[in-house]
């Protein structure tokens, strides 16, 4: 049957049955169906088939699906909240982060801008580290650094959100109550900088070391420089117990004329408390996850997921613990940066060497020159002698042969 005789192929009827044609095409088919019983039967068959297929009904999805999918959604929600916070506050976060970094750099690095790693006192630092007493702290109230507090507060909030979402998805009934141990007073990181001019450099240097010993502090770094045409200079970073800062400064001022002195401090109480709270929460979470791991024996994907969460929480705990210790140590020991300069006194240069000394020097130089020449000659023969000998063995007989032949020709 040709297209002319039968304008609609069976294949073209299927889109009509399935409602996939536009109105114009559908009306064309309908028109054809009125005239063509064969095509009308195909349509009827297709509709009947569709009806028969519809008899295969499957049960509704089990309710167990909800738990898994919705818990995944909670997990995702936790992550998205963090990300949404970041997206919304990115500019603020950058700004605050930058401000925090600038303050931290000023506090920690500025006093040691002349640091020279050639003379570190790492051993001293290690030996004194053991003397840090984690007893409750008693510190005088100091001005607070608002930027730092704000930044740390937000970081803490983010960390808390992460852990809460983790708990919500693993143990919905679990409660995370922060039980941080608050410090008894404000936690202050103190630092000072002294620039001193002294006439007795060596004595002053010895005195600095004595002050460090007396106050039970340690020398974090010490560099001494001395160049011709100028006096010696010393750059040292002292770490003294915070309670000994004032007495240490009094003693240091006695070393000479104080050219410059500055003191600073930053309040890290909120940062410390926040870290403590996050740490406690993370530990609680870890315990619950471990309990969950022991109790649940269902799907492998769930077990793997729990293990992954445990690893992540453990890593977070270790990182926060390191941060907490670092903050604590910084509050225990104040940093004093000392720049000590010697008052320079110019000296008369010594006269030129005598004629006898110069002659002696010239003779010694000549002797060394001759010796070096002989040595160079010996080295040349040793290095190239064997090669020259080899070439002589090959070339001399050839040369002699050529000479004899030349002489023979002349005689002939």
């Amino acid at each position, binding site marked *: 049957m040709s297209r002319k005789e039968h304008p609609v192929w069976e294949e073209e009827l299927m889109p009509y049955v399935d409602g*996939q044609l536009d109105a114009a095409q559908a009306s064309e088919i309908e028109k054809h169906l009125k005239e063509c019983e064969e095509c009308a039967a195909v349509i009827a068959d297709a509709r009947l088939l569709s009806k028969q297929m519809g008899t295969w009904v499957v049960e509704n999805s089990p309710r167990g699906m909800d738990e898994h999918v919705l818990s995944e959604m909670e997990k995702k929600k936790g992550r998205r909240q963090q990300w949404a916070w970041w997206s919304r506050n990115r500019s603020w976060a950058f700004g605050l982060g930058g401000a925090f970094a600038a303050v931290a750099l000023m506090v920690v690095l500025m006093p040691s801008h002349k640091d020279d790693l050639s003379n570190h006192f790492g051993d001293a630092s290690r030996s004194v580290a053991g003397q840090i007493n984690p007893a409750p702290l008693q510190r005088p109230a100091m001005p607070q650094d608002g930027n730092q507090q704000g930044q740390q507060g937000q970081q803490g909030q983010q960390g808390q959100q992460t852990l809460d979402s983790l708990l919500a998805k693993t143990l919905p009934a679990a409660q995370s109550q922060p039980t941080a141990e608050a410090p008894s007073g404000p936690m202050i990181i103190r630092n000072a900088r002294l620039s001193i001019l002294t006439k007795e450099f060596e004595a002053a240097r010895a005195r600095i070391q004595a002050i460090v010993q007396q106050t039970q502090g340690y020398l974090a770094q010490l560099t001494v420089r001395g160049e011709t045409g100028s006096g010696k200079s010393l750059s040292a970073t002292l770490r003294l117990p915070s309670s000994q800062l004032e007495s240490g400064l009094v003693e240091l001022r006695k070393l000479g004329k104080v050219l410059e002195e500055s003191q600073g401090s930053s309040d890290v109480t909120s940062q410390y408390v926040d870290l403590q709270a996050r740490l406690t929460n993370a530990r609680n979470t870890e315990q619950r996850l471990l309990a969950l791991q022991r109790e649940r024996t269902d799907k492998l994907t769930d077990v793997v997921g729990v293990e992954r969460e445990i690893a992540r929480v453990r890593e977070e705990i270790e990182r926060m613990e390191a941060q907490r210790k670092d903050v604590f140590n910084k509050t225990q020991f104040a940093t004093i940066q000392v720049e000590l300069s010697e008052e320079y006194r110019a000296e008369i240069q010594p006269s030129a060497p005598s004629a006898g000394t110069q002659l002696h020097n010239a003779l010694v130089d000549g002797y060394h020159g001759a010796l070096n020449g002989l040595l160079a000659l010996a080295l040349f023969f040793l290095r190239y002698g064997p090669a020259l000998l080899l070439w002589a063995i090959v070339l001399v007989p050839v040369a002699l042969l050529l000479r004899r032949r030349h002489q023979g020709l002349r005689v002939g």
Partner: protein
Amino acid sequence: MKSDEQLMLEYQGGSPHAFEQLFERYRNPVYGFFRRRLNNASRAEELAQETFVVILRDTEQYKPTARFRTYMYAIALKQLWSERRKEIRDGKLAAAVLHEERPQGDPETGLWVRAALEQLDPDHREVLMLREYEQLSYDEIAEVLAVPVNTVRSRLSRARVELKSLLESQSARGVSR
């Protein structure tokens, strides 16, 4: 009622309620998709879960240029093919077919349809099932299976002819018994 695409965009924008609506809307169809194609009900449930989990995990990858249903069934099909490869590897597919219960009774029941569908060419069967059970349009089927629309049309037509013939022969056997 909001469209699937609107809900998905709302979820991308941070509304968990939007995804809950999508899940409620498609939990049964997606479960049915796997249940009709696998002999194992619990595995069908797991794969349906996994499909939603993949959608959740890769939410950011969804672009509103694609219809949500197409996107969702494309993920479901990938899961299904992966499962079938696994079954073939483990030799479970053959066992499942061998132990499958044979349809009995009235040809109008679903068991007859199921048995007849099993005998269709797999490519034809998939197109027919996507059309009849998942109610996808020809364009959507073409997109999900990555074949031209004309191929969908011809496969669908052949699948219907084959299925009709199989059902008739089954019916004739049933009557003769």
